[in-house]
Every structure is written in C-alpha cells, then in structure tokens.
C-alpha cells in the first residue's frame, strides 16, 4: 500500500515505454536497446516534467517485469550525502547478480547535474568499475552540468518540453477517469502555467480538483499559490523592502517548518525574479542572476544553508536599495494559502 497511488502524477505514470506520451524518437531508440538487451549507459537530459524518470522506470519494467525493484537502485544526488555514500550504495548493490533475463542491474541517478565535478569524476570511475554488472541511467536538467568524460560514455537523449495537444489530451483523460469536471478554458489555464511540464500540469489539475468540484480558470490560478509557494514571492519582496529580520523569519519558516532545502529556495527565488513575477528593472535582473549564481556555488561549497541564504537576502536588500524597490509591498496572501 502506498501514499503515492493517491497522487495522480504517480497513479497515472506510464509503466511501459509505448504508453509514454510524445518523445517518439527517444522511444524508438530506447526500444531497440531494450529489445537487443544490449544497452549502454544512458544520459537523459531536459527540463522537468518531460518524462526522464518515467522513461527510466519504464525501461526497468520492460527489462525485469515484476521483479524490477530488486534490480534497480534509485538514487537522487541531492539526497545522498556525498559521493562516498553513493559509492557505498552502488558497491553494495552491484555485489549481487541481476535476476531475470537482463545480464545487468540498473542504477538510476537523478539530478546528476547537481553533483560537483569531483563527484562526477568519482562517478565516472564507478561506471567503469561496475560496467560488467550494472548500467547507469543518469538524469539531468542540463547537459552542460555533466562533465565531458561522462557524456562520452553515455548514449545521450534529449527530452523536449511536451506539446500542448499532448498535455491537454492527457489532462482530459485523467479528469474523466477521476470524474472531475473541467472546461476547455481551465485546461488552457493549466497549460499556461505548466507549459510542457507534465508533472506540473497534473499536479495543478489535482490541486484544482481538491479546491473545487468544477474547475474553472479562476480555480486554476488560485491553486498555483499552493504548488508555487507565495512564500517565495513574499520573501523576495520583503528582502527588497529592506526588512532583513522579517525576511529572515520567512526564510526560517520555509527551512525549518516546511523543510524546504536551501538550493530549492534559491532556485525558486531565481525563477520568481527572473520570470518577472516580482517587478524589478531589467538591468537589476542581471545582478540578481549574478548573485544567485554566486550563492548557488556557496551553498554547494559551504556547510550552513541558513548562512548562505542570509547572505542572499542581504544582497537582495542592496539591490532593493540601489533600485529604490523599498516601496514594494508584501503581496496579499490568497485566501486559500496556508
């Protein structure tokens, strides 16, 4: 019994390669690998919600059938404590022989581009060391975040954002199977929010379904406050306005009460500012990009996330002062925000 079967993203995750939407070229090539059983290491890259994880899991299903769990090691670089733990887990996993027809076991490593290049070098050595008994599938948002020696050892697959028709058709299918009423305008609104990110689209649909019996565009827009926390926008505006202590309290609530990781907060801050959801002059955006890049580096190198994010807030304060953003008001919380 799982919690995830109540989550539509998981409930409707395709388990076979053919069921995966779009990505035709990728599917053809991968099916050939699976058929011959002769599969190299794979590297899937592309934006979130385009099917990388789903594809990796579908390969596992096709290779091992029901016993896929015993033959697959799933790792997420951001959750493993450094390359040493990854090495230990891989070593332990590679010790036993694979079950079923495939002559190797599968290691799916998500967020590989978040690993430092030193860690990736170590990873490359592991890929070679266990090549006779394992295959790696590396997942990344950016190919550029993966060091060349790893790229050259993998078959590369680019996952493109999904087309509008495919996303809307899928949403309509899920809505009808769940008995949820949704009109075309609302489906269009979900597309506007999620673009080619299927995970975000389905999450938004479910959040909207939890909010109202009949989904309208208004409901959809109201809902996104949940999935894209308003807290982040408040945090940014308070920092721009120069109230450090208040901004820090918000930061702490996110970190310690909601348990959001430092890097995730940083990325959310970056997205909100650069997408224009927080109004700042264009030239200030360049400075923000520079600050975010710097803090990103410090977060990975440093050891105390709150110190690094506090430095971020202080620098946002300076931007606020420089561009006179201190009049920016805290956004009004939507009615249904927690």
């Amino acid at each position, binding site marked *: *019994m799982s919690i995830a079967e109540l989550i539509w993203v998981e409930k409707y995750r395709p388990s076979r390669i053919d069921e995966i939407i779009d990505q035709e070229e990728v599917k053809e090539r991968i099916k050939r690998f699976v058929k011959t059983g002769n599969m190299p290491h794979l590297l899937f890259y592309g934006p979130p919600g385009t099917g990388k994880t789903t594809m990796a899991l579908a390969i596992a299903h096709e290779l091992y059938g029901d016993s896929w769990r015993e033959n697959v090691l799933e790792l997420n670089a951001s959750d493993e404590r450094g390359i040493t733990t990854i090495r230990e887990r891989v070593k332990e996993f590679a010790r036993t022989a694979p079950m079923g027809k495939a002559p190797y076991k599968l290691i799916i490593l998500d967020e590989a581009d978040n690993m430092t290049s030193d860690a990736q070098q170590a990873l490359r050595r592991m890929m070679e060391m266990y090549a006779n008994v394992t295959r790696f599938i590396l997942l990344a948002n950016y190919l550029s975040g993966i060091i060349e020696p790893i790229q050259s050892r993998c078959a590369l697959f680019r996952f493109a954002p999904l087309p509008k028709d495919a996303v809307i058709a899928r949403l309509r299918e899920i809505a009808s199977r769940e008995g949820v009423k949704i009109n075309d305008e609302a489906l269009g609104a979900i597309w506007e929010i999620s673009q080619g990110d299927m995970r975000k689209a389905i999450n938004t649909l479910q959040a909207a379904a939890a909010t109202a*019996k009949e989904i309208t565009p208004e409901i959809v827009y109201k809902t996104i406050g949940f999935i894209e926390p308003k807290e982040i926008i408040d945090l940014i505006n308070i920092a721009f306005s120069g109230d450090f202590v208040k901004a820090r309290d918000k930061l702490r609530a996110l970190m310690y009460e909601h348990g959001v990781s430092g890097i995730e907060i940083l990325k959310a801050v970056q997205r909100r500012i650069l997408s224009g959801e927080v109004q700042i002059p264009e030239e200030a955006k360049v400075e923000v990009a520079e600050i975010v890049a710097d803090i990103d580096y410090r977060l990975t190198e440093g050891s105390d996330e709150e110190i690094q994010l506090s430095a971020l807030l202080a620098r946002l304060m300076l931007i606020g002062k420089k561009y006179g953003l201190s009049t920016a008001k805290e956004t009004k919380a939507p009615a249904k925000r927690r």
Partner: protein
Amino acid sequence: MSRRIPWVEKYRPRKLSEVVNQDEAKKALLDWINSWEKGKPNKRAVLLAGPPGIGKTTLAYALANEKGYEVLELNASDVRTGERIRQVIGGSMKMGSLFGFRGRIILFDEVDGLNVREDKGGLAAIIELIRESTWPIIMTANNPWDPKFRELRNEAEVIQLKPLNEDDIMSILRRICNNEGIKCEEDALKLIAESSGGDIRAAINDLQAVAEGKKVVTKDDVTVTERTHQFDMFKVLDKVFHARRFDEARSVTFLPSFDWENYYPWALDNVPSVYAKSVDALSDALDNLSLSDVVRGRIVKTQGWELMPYMLELMTAGIALVRNKPPLARFVRLSFPERIRLMARTRESRQLRDALINRLRIELHTSSSEVSLYYMPLLRLMAGSDLFKKKLLERLMRVLGYSMDSVERALGIEGVGEGGEAGGGAERKPKKGSR
C-alpha cells in the same frame, strides 16, 4: 512542562530599600521626584544609565510604587504616532485619584533601541514630550553617551547606576535560596555570580535553571549550565563588534574557550540586529560570514585544516570591519540565537514530517526537496478537500503508523478531523510551531 514563575519576577524589588547597592542613584532619583512634587523640577526627565541586568527598570518601578505613582510605559512609536500622547499627557488627575495614585510616571524603557535613522521622529517626539509633559519622565539606556542622545542629555538628568559586584549578587542569590528552601554551596553561588558578569537578571535566571525543584545545589550542578559558555559568546561577539583593527577582531579566536562552530549561529543572529541601521554593514558582514562558511565547508570536505586561518579571519574581522559601520552602544545588545530555540521547538514535528517526506520521495521517485516544495503543499490542500480528505488521512495513518494528531503535525495543518467546507477545503492555518 509546568508553568513556573520566573524568579526574576518573583524577587523583583518592589521598594527602593530592597534595591541593592544603588544608594547614590536612589538618592538622586528621590531628590528629582521631590523637586517635581514641589512643582519645580530641575530637569523634567531622568535617564537611568548602566549595563543590562543591573536594575534600571526595577528602580523606576520601585520608585513609582513607593511614592504612589502609576507607571505608564511608552515606546517611541506611541509618541510619534501621537496615539497615546493625548491619553497620557492630556489625561487629568481624575484617573489618578480614581485608582488612588498620586500621579503618573512615564517610562521610556531602553531608548538605545531607537533606530536613529528610522526613528528620528521618535527621538524628537520624546524630547518634545519631555518639554511639555506634566508628568515625570524616566528613561533607561545602556549607553547614555551615544552621540545620538546629545540633545536628549540636555533635557534629562543622567543618573548612572553602578554595576553589581560579585558579593552583591551572591547576597541576592543567597536570599533567594533561603526563601526557596534550597541549600546551595557557596562555591556554586560564587560560580554563578562570576559568570553573570554583573548582570543580576542573568544570575537569577541561572540560579533558577540549576536550582529549581532541588533541595541541594553543588558546584558541579552549576558547571553544566550554559551561561559560562553563553557568557563567553557574549564577550566574544561584543569584542568583535567593537573591534576597529583586524588583529583586535581576530584575537578572540585565540581564546582557549573560542568555539568556532557555535560562533556561526550567534553571529548570524546578532549581525542583523547590531547592524540594523546600515544595509552596507549588514550585507558586508553576512557576506564575509558566508565566505567563512564556504571555507569551513571546504575544510570539512577535504580535511584541509591549513585553511583554518582564513575561516577564522573572515568570521571575525570580516564582521568587525565593514562599510558604513554604524556607531555602536558601549554594550551592544546581543541575543541568544533564535535558530537554536526554533530547532528545539519544532524538533518533533520535523521528525514526523521528515519520515513522511522520506517515504514520499521514494514512492514518487524524486528528491526530498522536490517533495517539500511541490508535493507537501498538494497534500495539505488534499487534506482540506472533501474529495480526497478521508482517503488521504486514513492512508497516511496506516502507512506511517501515525495517530491523526501526528498526521496533522507532519502535514503542518490542524483541525482537519472536523468536517471540511462544502465545495472545497476550509482554510487551514499553520500549526503554531513557532511564533
């Protein structure tokens, strides 16, 4: 935990005679209030000055109590907005006679806290109030010689309180022990008195921490309290903030008791309050602290202890030597790091939630930060929805083996067990895990 009365309150002197070791200050204060009563005050206000925890506020209340005045505490924003001014100065004797008070004393506690730039109006308004007030005004400050008080000093008589010595503090502690029926070794009292650095409030708090509920307190009980350590950290930070030279700031790192790991949360919490008046100073200091943490990260990862000096220099001199450093009071106000409290207070809920997040990240094939940022809000929304609520909560209870209360705490919601609103979830307030 049972509710307890802080001994600081319980044993706060109510009369001037109970205030220890401030004879000169008491006399000056009585002379001043008498001059008011004769209708001809030499100065209309007094400024009680001295380091934290030596009884400035207590003295003001003791005076009022003894002479039959009602104390009205005001802060700068009250005055500036004028909201309470009319109520205070404009108020006739009616009120006083009704409750048997002879009159009122207006108390401005801790005027150091005024932010000169932002509260410029506040300081001016206080001066105006002093000139117009028909009531005696008492102010307290740690450092009355701060340049920002120049004008205020012309309007008020400065009364300097003496720091308490160890004997004074020990005699107060001894009296409390007697009263509470606690037998406390002299050495133990001496240790508490020493580590208080003349701060009687700190000393009494420490005594209560080690002694409450005990019959006998020995020296060993005291050594395990945190204050000696905390006190060191106060001293270290005070020195760092006041340092004008690189060497001076760095010198604290040579102290045998210097605890660099613990220094980070202390610095992180106190930089923003000490440098509240200067964005430049604040951001420089935090930037250097952040760089120091980067060096620390590298040291930990590579065991490169030869990098240690850089880390120590950035965390001390990097905080002391900053652009547009604001003028500091002689005793900067420092506080215990809120983060340490916050972490302790939210520990249990965090553990419940972490277990949930960990389970979800595996089931959803994603990272824990992705779960906290995108799926936890969805679950909270589902928990407030007629469509999903029942199924979700039952499932969470079964899968995680939690009680309903624990499920709610893990999700960070409350009151979900009651019926939701028709057509959607009722608004859920976050559980009051923290302020």
